[in-house]
């Protein structure tokens, strides 16, 4: 009966209830939309981060701490094989890739400029090269003396796909070395300053250029990025057991920008949540106060028949919670519709940390919906506390005199 009574009271003044439900539903929908956008941004950013770093990296600790002197912290061929073998045994591992970077000069007959070359295993199993927004060939399709230049670097040099360039650098032992490479692709990068210097090459080419069989890092790909910490722990334990003197870092540890974004978006979502809470609270508290006080005489009657103050208070709270729950469910449905329309519009954007424009795809999950749902129900519940308390504390005699 309490539920029935609360539900009937909710729909007693339809116009007022419609207004309350509208405020609650819109608040829920806006909040949910914000959360979906934040979720999409973070997902894009983590994919962009892991696309470049792999889920887990293995390297000498000096590399991670930027304390390597030249090429004195490379991983030897033997260790590379052992690390790859150990990584491949771990569950969920997609594959491994080797990385060896260098700095040097790149140019042709017309001039030269600085290049930061990145040698990578030419497979798409760990770094997803599409995160570089490559035009032309990817490394998978590149030959042993072919490479991809940053778009701005290529423009600076005045070269394009199909042209040849010369690369000069020092070997691991400090001698001068140079090679000619054909440009088979151009890449875009989220940071312009990096795009002006970056070049991707097959790792074997870079090893030959630097006269070494070592690599700087081993990149490991994972099916589930969230399991990177577990994989890192497992590798650390395996390295300790086998005496492999290498460090392990997860993509989260390597992408400090992602952690900052997470904090920013958490604050942004929190602010949105507080705003929606305040909007719902202040809009609904007035409506509920009027609605509850109109029933002063009924409250007095039930109290005269022996209903306790707590029962009256609880009844009003139940009513508030019911309005909140109904409004929140409508809000979730509204947000689902908005998201469907939004996704169907295929609005393109370049997510933070990525160079590749893509259609925004917002997704709503039950766990995402729960936060706004609980927020607005709590806001409505909070807004019903004061009028409920006030009504429950009414003097029965005075309330019975109310017309």
């Amino acid at each position: 009966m309490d539920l029935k009574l609360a539900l009937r009271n909710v729909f007693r003044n339809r116009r007022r209830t419609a207004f309350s439900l509208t405020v609650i539903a819109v608040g829920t929908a806006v909040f949910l939309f914000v959360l979906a956008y934040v979720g999409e941004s973070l997902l894009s950013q983590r994919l962009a981060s892991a696309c470049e770093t792999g889920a887990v990296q293995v390297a000498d600790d000096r590399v991670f701490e930027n304390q390597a002197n030249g090429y004195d912290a490379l991983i030897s061929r033997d260790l590379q094989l052992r690390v790859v073998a150990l990584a491949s045994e771990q569950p969920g591992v997609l594959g491994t890739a080797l990385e060896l970077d260098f700095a040097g000069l790149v140019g042709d007959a017309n001039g030269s400029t600085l290049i930061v070359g990145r040698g990578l295993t030419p497979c798409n199993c760990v770094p997803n090269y599409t995160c570089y927004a490559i035009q032309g060939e990817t490394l998978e399709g590149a030959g042993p003396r072919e490479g991809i230049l940053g778009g701005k670097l290529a423009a600076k040099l005045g070269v394009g796909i199909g042209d040849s360039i010369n690369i000069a650098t020092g070997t691991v032992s400090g001698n001068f070395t140079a090679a000619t490479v054909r440009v088979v692709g151009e890449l875009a990068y989220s940071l312009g300053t990096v795009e002006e210097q970056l070049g991707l090459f097959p790792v074997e080419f870079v090893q030959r250029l630097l006269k070494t069989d070592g690599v700087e890092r081993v990149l490991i790909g994972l099916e589930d990025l969230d399991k990177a910490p577990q994989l890192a722990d497992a590798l650390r334990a395996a390295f300790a057991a086998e005496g492999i003197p290498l460090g392990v870092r997860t993509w989260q540890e390597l992408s400090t920008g992602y952690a900052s974004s997470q904090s920013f978006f958490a604050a942004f979502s929190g602010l949105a949540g507080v705003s929606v809470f305040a909007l719902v609270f202040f809009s609904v508290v007035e409506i509920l106060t009027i609605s509850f006080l109109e029933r002063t005489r009924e409250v007095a009657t039930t109290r005269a028949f022996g209903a306790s103050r707590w029962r009256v208070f609880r009844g009003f709270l139940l009513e508030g919670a019911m309005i909140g729950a109904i409004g929140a469910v409508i809000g979730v449905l509204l947000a689902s519709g908005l998201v469907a329309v939004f996704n169907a519009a295929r609005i393109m954007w370049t997510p933070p940390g990525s160079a590749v424009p893509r259609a925004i795809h917002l997704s709503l999950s039950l766990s995402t919906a729960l936060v706004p749902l609980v927020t607005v129900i709590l806001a409505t519940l909070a807004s019903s506390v004061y009028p409920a308390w006030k009504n429950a504390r009414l003097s029965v005699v005075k309330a019975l005199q109310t017309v």
Partner: protein
Amino acid sequence: MGHGSQFCHARGAKFLDAQRLTKTYRVGAETVYALRDVSFSALQGDFVVINGPSGSGKTTFLNLIAVIDRPTAGEVFIENQATSTQSEGQLAILRKTKIGLVFQSFNLIPVLSAAENVEYPLLLQRRPKAERQERVRALLAEVGLSDLARRRPNELSGGQRQRVAIARALVSGPMIVLADEPTANLDSKTGEAVMDLMRRLNEEHCVTFIVVTHDPAVSRYAGRRVRIHDGRLEEGEGDGVAASAS
């Protein structure tokens, strides 16, 4: 049915005893006496009509003996238990179990049907559903509203609403029903029907009825008649035995 029948053997036992009740209100710096030193007793099965003009203190008196208000001085005893020392919660239990109320404006809950309104006091007593339904059915039949059980108050006439209110007052088997101007919002014919009903229920259920009214026509239903004037109580005609004016 109900507790009424089971207490019929106790007809004549003192159920309510109000001693030297005074109720004052502050109006600015002035103290206004709503009731002055009023004593009153009611016996099981009494049908008492309390007359008096508007503002004489009738409703104040009813509120005090219904234990929804507390006297400034004096004491209300219900079944020999002093009520002044009882907490709000204890008084609520007392009202829930021993007292039924009928109001001038019926005071039905508009979103509940006639049957649900009658059922409400039983819910407060946490009675099982089957028992609730049985009692509601019986009470509505007794007040002649079986066919209108599903109607909401706004779909009922004034007389029908008051009959629902009487059924609600009786459903939990109270020992006393207090009615405040039960016929004031009804035409004379409907008012008579309502009073006939209350009198019949009083006789059949052995439940004490105390009816407060300013309508002299109601007085003819009184087994005992009492008058309140300027906050003082005067015993009138009838077979009353325990009222006194101080």
